[in-house]
């Protein structure tokens, strides 16, 4: 088991280094940050001096080594635009993104699973067909369009929910949360539906097909033959077995929820890391871009690691093969 974990951690570090290297070589093509850092009447000499001071003229390898060296000490530099330490900027915005991702994941699970179960049990009912249609919309419409549609319906037409921002935030010192006030929860509704809709439809479709598959298996037939109530058959035996892939998918999708938050956060002016990243791209704020990409890669790797470990715990075969190797 320990060897398995160590091996996975070793691989994780390799993945992180690769991500950092790829993003660093891309920064050469995003433009000149001094353009955004200085006013229009700054002389060319001054701009060149700033570039030099920032170390932007050094070879990519040197810049990369410097970045990794600093990152290993949790020093991500100072934002070119905001002139504040990047670690602090990201730390300030981390709770907003995590709460949004959490609320979206909850929405996807709590709505997606019941819909999937229902559609799996009664695939021919009109409601199940409606769910299928809705899920098609969720899968095919781009996130920003869904967000704008929701804003148009719930904010502009009916004035029920706020169209932007994270309101009613309570500062707990180490974390800021919107879960403690009604205002905060209200402002979470539209962004989390927007962000979670794709995952919800994914889970719904997954549960539906798994459910239909499980219902055809022998042990379900046997359970029915034993005279168990449909309730016990469907929920205790069938649903439990459909949930194993759902847990895996949810775990893996959590990473992409965090990464895809960029668009949702921009549409709703949600003050998270994604919004900051998008602005950083437009202003060529390399310290923020590199730190964000590294952080998202870390989150992905961490989630995958946890999923793998859980798998190993749940499924002895993986653990055993790990030992054999």
């Amino acid at each position: 088991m320990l060897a398995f974990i160590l091996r996975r951690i070793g691989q994780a570090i390799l993945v992180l280094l690769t991500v950092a290297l790829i993003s660093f070589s891309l920064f050469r093509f995003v433009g000149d940050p001094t353009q955004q850092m200085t006013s229009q009447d700054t002389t060319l000499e001054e701009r060149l001096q700033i570039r030099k001071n920032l170390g932007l003229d050094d070879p990519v390898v040197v810049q990369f080594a410097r970045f990794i060296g600093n990152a290993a000490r949790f020093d991500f530099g100072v934002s070119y635009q905001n002139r504040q330490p990047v670690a602090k900027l990201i730390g300030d915005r981390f709770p907003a993104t995590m709460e949004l991702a959490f609320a979206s994941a909850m929405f996807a699970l709590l709505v997606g699973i019941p819909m999937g179960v229902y559609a799996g049990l009664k695939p021919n009912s009109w409601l199940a067909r409606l769910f299928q249609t809705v899920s098609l919309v969720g899968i095919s419409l781009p996130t920003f369009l869904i967000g704008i549609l929701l804003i148009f319906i719930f904010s502009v037409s009916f004035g029920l929910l706020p169209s932007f921002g994270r309101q009613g935030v309570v500062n707990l010192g180490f974390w800021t949360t919107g879960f403690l006030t009604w205002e905060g929860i209200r402002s979470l509704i539209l962004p989390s539906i927007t962000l979670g809709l794709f995952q919800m439809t994914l889970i719904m479709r997954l549960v539906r097909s798994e459910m239909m598959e499980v219902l055809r298996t022998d042990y379900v037939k046997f359970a029915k033959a034993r005279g168990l109530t449909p309730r016990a058959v469907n929920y205790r035996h069938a649903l439990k077995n459909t949930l194993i892939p759902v847990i895996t998918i949810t775990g893996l999708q959590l990473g992409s929820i965090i990464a895809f938050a960029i668009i949702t956060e921009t549409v709703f002016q949600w003050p998270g890391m994604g919004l900051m990243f998008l602005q950083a791209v437009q202003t060529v704020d390399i310290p923020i871009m590199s730190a964000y990409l590294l952080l998202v890669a870390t989150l992905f790797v961490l989630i995958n690691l946890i999923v793998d470990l859980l798998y190993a715990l749940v499924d002895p075969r993986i653990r055993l093969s790990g030992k054999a190797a």
Partner: protein
Amino acid sequence: MKPMKTLAVVGTLLAATFLTTISSEARTLRWARSGDALTLDPHGQNEGPTTALGQHIYEALTERDHTGKLGPSLATSWGVVPGDPTTWEFKIRPDVRFHNGATLTADDVVFSYERAMQPTSDFKGYLSSVESVTKVDNLTVRIKTKGPNPLLVNSTTSIYIMNKAWAEANNATKAQDFKSKEENFAVRNAMGTGPFTLVSREADVRTVMRRNEAYWAKSSVPLEVSELVFVPIKADATRVAALLSGEVDFVQDVPVQDIERLKGAPNMRITSGAENRTIFFGMDVASADLKGDNVQGKNPFADKRVRQAMNMAINRTAIQRIVMRGESVPTGVIMPPFVNGWTKELDAAPPTDVARARALLAEAGYPQGFSTTLHCPNDRYVNDEGICQAAVGMFGQIGIRVNLVSQSKSIHFTLIQKNPPETEFFLVGWGVPTYDSDYIFSFMYHSRQGSRGSWNATGYADKDVDAMIQSLSQEIDIPKRDATIAKLWAKLKDETIYLPIHHQALSYAMKSNLDIPVDVANSPKLKMVSFKGS
């Protein structure tokens, strides 16, 4: 008689009470635009949203109203010291208090100017001609320049005055530097004399300000807003939705395609006006041969007739009507209308004349036209990419086949600024913070030497023109100086170094009980807001 008098007195008292209640009534103004201020540091970032927010907390010696007219602010009067053309004297307004109660003195002014002149300041460019700033007495400051500078006062509108003692106590005597690891106190805190005091600030979320009840100009400005909340909303659709749903009261950066719809919405008002920014094309007029064209051994742009033909090919009214949806002012000069030196004659653009343009091209030796590459930004000006696409079609009509490359501003402007420039044909927009032609000449027409000509990517270099431009910064005889400006424009307009398109227009959208005029610097002054009706 007596009861009548009492009644009258009571009436007056009542009216007075009523009036005071109205003026001090709690009124919140929620203001949204696409980007947040980058910092509160008054000298940290010379950038639109940053200075637009900053002016509500900090003030300068002088200020410009929404039409661009210069007037007094923290200074009551100023002028060149008689007998010494290199020294300006500013009289400081007495009894002005900072938000912490400290009285404004010459020490604060000297401190702020010295802070703005430090290498880490983003405003040092405005003060590059300044040698020293000294205190004469508590309410008098002298600014000594390296040579005569007839326009120094124009720079003073941009230099905000902060409280010296406060900055020293909080270790914020230097503008924030991107190299420093420690965050400067002035980035999130502020201590100015402005109409609003800072209550709270969360970057990218909101900045809340409260009315400064002790504001020195309280009697001369409406100052009806008791609480000012600034929220950045990046997405265009969301920003407009927030206004329509009533979550904000006043919106800048209104997308042009939404203006018509907002005009039709109930209880909405749109104000429009020209911005201090002109959009134009520039091209390499100097190189012996272009890399991006199909003409061998010659540079078609070097021929004035080709440039004039291209100038005639642009259908400015079509661009205004279709690309800009009416939100622009077509022009024939690269100078916004409120800049010193602007005349109606200069502003007139040549009428679109495809036949004449073709004839000129043939005369220049290109009867079949030629092909070239145009570089265009796609995220800097209003519909910048659309302007380029329209122009490509128009140049096509006279046989100039243009290959369009549009890219992000951070890449585009680097091409222009490189030495030598890496573009031979480009779109650029230019605003004039000094409101004087010299700024345009120095950056756009002077040959690339030292600090001058840094945006002149055309390669245009004319000794006489350079000499005349240089004389402008020394000449203190204003009529003589204006004559030189007129002479320069006459020559440069004929040379057609740039192809002007239009002055960019701005639109603000707001609830109909507000009437906020468009500010030429796109920096609305919300102390001037008064609520109507309701």
